[in-house]
């Protein structure tokens, strides 16, 4: 049943060309910053690699959050405004499966998009901008991108989804969303942490905190609460 929700959410995201276009444009604009750094400022290779690590760790989360913000209406809020949530909850599905399926769909789509753009950017960077230097993310950066960041994204997007599903007020969702953006900006780009092994304990603490927050939020997510939040 999770697969049904996940597939449908992905189909809906693919059909929403406007959302994809906005995200694509925003993603390209966000890549303009490292482009400026690498073209206007002369760094040594080690600093450039660290900058690339940080930028892509931060970039993937931002793309997913941006997509979560744009798709929030279509995937979560619209279930309530069109009252399709009533029919869904009359099936063997429960609200937590619906929530998880949609959250995973947003994260998958956002992550794939950020990966494609990151690789395109790296290809352009290494072949046309700083030729001969081979600037790629470090192994620690890649592990972060592949293992830790997806978990962080699922927790962040998941909490936005929970807030949308149980809240009667869309404004609360928007405020909640911005709190998550600023929190993620602060946590993912800390000042004194370098992109090596010391990053992992720090990220694991973030994952643990988000795990606890999500678990607490999930206690508020019930079929009854969602039905009562529908006007």
């Amino acid at each position: 049943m999770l697969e049904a929700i996940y597939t449908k959410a992905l189909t809906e995201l693919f059909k929403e060309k406007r959302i994809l276009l906005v995200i694509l444009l925003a993603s390209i604009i966000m890549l303009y910053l490292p482009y400026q750094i690498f073209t206007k400022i002369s760094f040594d290779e080690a600093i450039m690699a660290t900058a690339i690590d940080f930028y892509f760790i931060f970039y993937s989360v931002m793309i997913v959050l941006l997509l979560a913000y744009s798709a929030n209406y279509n995937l979560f809020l619209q279930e309530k405004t069109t009252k399709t949530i009533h029919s869904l909850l009359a099936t063997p599905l429960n609200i937590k499966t619906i929530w998880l399926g949609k959250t995973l769909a947003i994260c998958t789509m956002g992550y794939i998009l950020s990966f494609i753009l990151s690789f395109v950017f790296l290809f352009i960077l290494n072949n046309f901008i700083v030729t001969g230097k081979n600037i790629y993310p470090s192994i620690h950066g890649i592990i972060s991108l592949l293992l830790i960041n997806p978990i962080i994204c699922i927790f962040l997007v998941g909490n936005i989804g929970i807030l949308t599903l149980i809240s009667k007020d869309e404004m609360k969702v928007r405020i909640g969303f911005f709190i998550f953006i600023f929190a993620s900006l602060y946590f993912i780009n800390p000042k004194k942490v370098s992109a090596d092994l010391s990053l992992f304990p720090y990220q694991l603490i973030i994952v643990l905190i988000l795990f606890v927050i999500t678990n607490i939020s999930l206690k508020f997510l019930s079929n009854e609460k969602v039905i009562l939040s529908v006007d």
Partner: protein
Amino acid sequence: MLEDDGLYGNLTLLENLEFYAKIYKLDFQKVKKITDNLLLKFDLSANKDNKVSTFSHGMKQKASFVRAIIHDPKLLILDEPFNGLDPDMQGVLRDHLLYLLKEKGTTIFFSSHNLYEVDRLCDKIAIIKDGEIKLEEYLYNLKSQSKNEDYNLEKVYFKYANE
């Protein structure tokens, strides 16, 4: 089946049915045959690849009914199923409900303001006014109680609803 159709406007009718078939863990190819017959019966075949948002109220009502019975439920709860349907389609829906009752043994519980359909379909009725059940009785009892007078469900309704 709810008064709001519960269908996704941005998906086609077939995509909606496929989605609900997946939720009930049905093999859509197997139920496709049954669905095709139902769509034909309810005059929706030509629109199965159109987005539900382009449907009229009556078409959405019919599509919603097909969606509700896709998994062959033993209990069917319908909220105002005859709303928005033209007389032809009301007849088709009534016949199908009778088929489900008699051939499949489905228990059907429905709310309606249409006393004619209630009289044709129900074994047992409840009259609800202001959230309170004013009468709960088998129709054959009501008919036998009023054997000296002409039986009329409308009269029964007014008698109990205005008590």
